[in-house]
């Protein structure tokens, strides 16, 4: 079994070990310390030291070679010479209910002239008076002597019209909503945005750098799904959730689709899930509701439940610019933090005067402008439904409708042929144009816009022409 040999081995091992220990006791202290330090260094080298990246140290000659070799791309890529934006023809005269093109008059169903204020003599007179008092430009931003008393008057009138506490005006319709959204919603805040919103809102959402959650166009159940998801997420981290603001960005009447948003249900959800509603009523201001006060009037909802209503002065009112109305608490913040308001020149006074006069006309006692517009829209909708082969997108009361061809025939080229044919018959319509980087590019369509002064015969004529056009194009 060899146990005596083993015993011997163990014994010798023990003796060796013992003598090792004895030698430890005899070594000087500094020697021990040095050894321990070496051991620790080796351990550190093996375990903790990250391998150093070999840095590229280029010589000056190499750098110069790189600089000489580098070729940038051309500043802009070549463009298609046939793009519509480059083939522009000139037009003269007022673009009102009728336009004169190449000497011939045609009915205008293409511009956003809902209440036919373009060329209105009362408005033009007031604008002329403004030029004679204030000149043309305002020569400064609002903070530095660019606030003219006519701006203050317009803001008060707009707030009064909507029965809100305060209003604020901007000098450009596109910049209005694109400046408003980033003023309130910052990085990490949550935006629930309808997919069908128009481009200016998309840019505002992009500029805000917030977390965006898109929901399918006008689909309340999709919105609820997102809200529930967010709620679950919040419950996991309630402390963080208390610092994140939530906003719902919608339009009253969607420009790209012509349909109304389901506002009542959204307001209910607002109080349940605690988000604030910013509604853009560019198209529905002056066109929807008994007196043109928009979707809130149509659905009979208290306007105080909507945190901010933004809109444009470029459609029904026939001027230039944009505005927002709401409670003072919300609106006043923009005066210091909306970029398009603080860092841009203010609205030229003549355009503000024109807007005030347009509001005067809209607020007159016996006016039935908006009512008439809704009625005519309904009638037009009926007539259009009677034409075979077209798909009408939009509400019946909406004065803005999108026309598409049915099935796979709906291409931009065919729609343009329809537009061309209509022009020869004396009707001006347009294909809706979009840039390619829209979040969700709408399908090609013809955007029909109804002017309140159009007579029934003219609407009939439009339908006749559209029918003939379709037959010609799809043959």
């Amino acid at each position, binding site marked *: 079994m060899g146990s005596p040999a083993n015993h011997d081995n163990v014994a010798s091992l023990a003796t060796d070990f013992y003598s090792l220990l004895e030698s430890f006791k005899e070594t000087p202290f500094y020697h021990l310390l040095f050894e321990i330090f070496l051991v620790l260094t080796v351990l550190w080298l093996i375990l903790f030291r990250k391998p150093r990246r070999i840095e590229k140290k280029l010589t000056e000659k190499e*750098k110069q070679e790189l600089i000489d070799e580098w070729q940038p791309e051309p500043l802009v890529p070549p463009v298609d010479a046939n793009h519509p934006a480059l083939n522009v023809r000139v037009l003269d005269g007022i673009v009102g209910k009728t336009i004169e093109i190449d000497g011939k008059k045609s009915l205008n169903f293409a511009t956003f002239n809902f209440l036919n204020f373009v060329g209105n003599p009362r408005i033009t007179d007031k604008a002329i008076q403004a030029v004679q008092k204030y000149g043309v430009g305002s020569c400064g931003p609002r903070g530095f002597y660019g606030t003219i008393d006519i701006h203050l008057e317009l803001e008060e009138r707009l707030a009064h019209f909507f029965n809100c506490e305060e209003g604020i005006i901007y000098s*450009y319709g596109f910049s209005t909503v694109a400046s408003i959204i980033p003023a309130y919603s910052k990085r990490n805040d949550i935006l629930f945005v309808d997919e069908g919103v128009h481009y200016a809102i998309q840019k505002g959402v992009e500029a805000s750098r917030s977390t965006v959650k898109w929901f399918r166009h006008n689909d309340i159940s999709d919105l609820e799904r997102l809200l529930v998801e967010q709620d679950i997420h919040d419950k996991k981290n309630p402390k963080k959730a208390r610092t994140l603001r939530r906003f719902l960005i919608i339009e009253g009447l969607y420009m790209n689709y012509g349909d109304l948003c389901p506002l009542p249900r959204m307001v209910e959800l607002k109080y349940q899930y605690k988000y604030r509603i910013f509604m853009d009523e560019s198209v529905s201001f002056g066109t929807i509701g008994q007196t043109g006060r928009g979707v809130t009037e149509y659905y009979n909802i208290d306007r105080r439940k909507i945190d901010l209503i933004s809109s444009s002065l470029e459609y029904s009112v026939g001027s230039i610019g944009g505005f927002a109305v709401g409670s003072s608490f919300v609106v006043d913040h923009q005066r210091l933090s909306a970029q398009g308001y603080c860092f841009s*020149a203010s609205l030229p006074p003549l355009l503000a005067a*024109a807007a005030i006069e347009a509001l005067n006309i809209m607020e007159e006692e016996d006016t039935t402008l908006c009512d008439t517009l809704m009625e005519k829209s309904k009638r037009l909708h009926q007539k259009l439904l009677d034409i075979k082969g077209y798909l009408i997108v939009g509400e019946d009361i909406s004065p803005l409708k999108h026309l598409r061809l049915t099935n796979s025939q709906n291409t931009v080229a065919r729609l343009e042929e329809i537009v061309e044919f209509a022009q020869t018959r004396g009707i001006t319509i347009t294909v809706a144009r979009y840039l390619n980087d829209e979040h969700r590019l709408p399908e090609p369509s013809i955007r029909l816009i109804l002017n309140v002064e159009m007579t029934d015969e003219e609407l009939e004529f439009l339908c006749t022409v559209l029918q003939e056009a379709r037959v010609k194009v799809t043959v």
Partner: protein
Amino acid sequence: MLASSSSKLSHATLVHRYPPSKLHSEEEMSDTVFSSDENEMNYKCENVARKDDENLQCEEFEETPLYAAILTYLSYAILCLFGWLRDFLRNSNIEKKRGAVDPNATLGFVPLYQSYESFYTRNMYTRVRDIFNRPIASVPGAQFELTERVSDDYNWTYRYTGKTINAINLGSYNYLGFAEKSGPCATDAINALKTYGVSSCNTRIELGMFQRTQRYHVELEQLLANFLHVESSIAFGMGFATNALNIPAVASKGDLILSDEMNHISLILGMRLSGASYRTFAHNDMKDLEAKLRAAIVHGHPRTQRPWKKIIIVVEGVYSMEGSICRLPELIALKKKYKAYLYMDEAHSVGAMGKNGRGIVDYFGVDANDVDILMGTFTKSFGSAGGYIAGKKSLIDHIRVNSHSNTYASSMSAPVVQQIISSLRLLKRPEGQKRICQLADNTRYFRQKLVDMGFIVYGNKNSPVVPMLIYMPARVTRFNREMLRRGIAVVTVGFPATKLLDARVRFCISAAHTRQMLDTALTAIDEIGTDISLRYSTRHKSRRLREL
């Protein structure tokens, strides 16, 4: 922070000290008056030739004196202290809470504003709010009417008394004096209103087949291209939007943008929206720019190491807060050497600088085609509204196709366009030349007098934007209110529009100002400057106006 601010400001390219007598001996124009209401200009432009023999890039940025810096920080500290005290009083209901209240506050909504954001608004801005946003009731010409407003509750609310105050306007951007309510431009604008109405309610490319655009729009773009000596141009309805919506059309992901650190916020917004990477270089510092250019080309994208697709340098012609002018000849040399592209924002310089009013390109006498993208606005020198981009035809075509404004925003209003066309036409005639000369003279006179009195004035001596440093917030407010009491309206800016230390008053000289108006203003500045000790300059001796 103190050290860094002084090092940034201590560079001065060439400091020209004008001995005072030189200016006075050539002063033969003190009696002629440029009338903004009538159209007779009996002023002879005698000083155009002088520009050629002086250094065009002479700029001065004097360092902040130490005691001013300390006192400024102290002022802000005291203001913060009082702010906290007042907030405490308000929160414990000892003091009444003013200001609007969130209607959703009690319902469990997340607060709309951070409390620290509104700290500044509640406690500092509101106390001096009356010096900003002053409404006017007349044309913003050389003299205008301010509506009088009083506050009974320390600026939380205002009450309009119905009276107006007549004041000399040193605050509006009216460089060539085109803010007029009568005269050829105004008459043309009124005619345009009668012919075309106020607006046409459509975008530029959506009017039936073969997109139709208004004749005046096309005319404006051609006239502008001729004026600037470039191939083509395109005009938009808003200057801010021109930058913010068209830089994304030119730059995209994979590009590098090098922008001056003092660039306007519209340029920064455009750069952010474009998706390109952007870096800043020190203000007007060509060495720093060159170093950054070299580093960018050599190393490429910091993460992927791929070379940049293209590099764009973004500068402004005249910087509106600093009064400095970009160094265009050096920029063009750099751009050619490193094959970068140059974007110049001439918002404040088109019309106002240069012998013929063509902007910085004219001022330095370089070829306009060397600047790849020229951008400008019509608000400042043309008395209208809107912006433009000018350059080669290929660039403008690309912008026409891809611009957000062209596709989605309304086309410009007819009277606004007509005002620009009329003022452009006027600039080519002798009357326009007189305006340009008068502006140049007014600028040099005003700046020279301020510097001689011992105030710190930033910027190039030819730039019509004259920032004078005041530093302390309380002095800024006092200066503004005192000037108004003497019938002069000025613009004072502080944090956050400028750096914390550098609160200033910014004078905007106009061709419509007469020598008399400038003298009135200088007398007032002299008095107030003595009263509240604004003569900080150590490079120039402090003197009273009567001694000059």
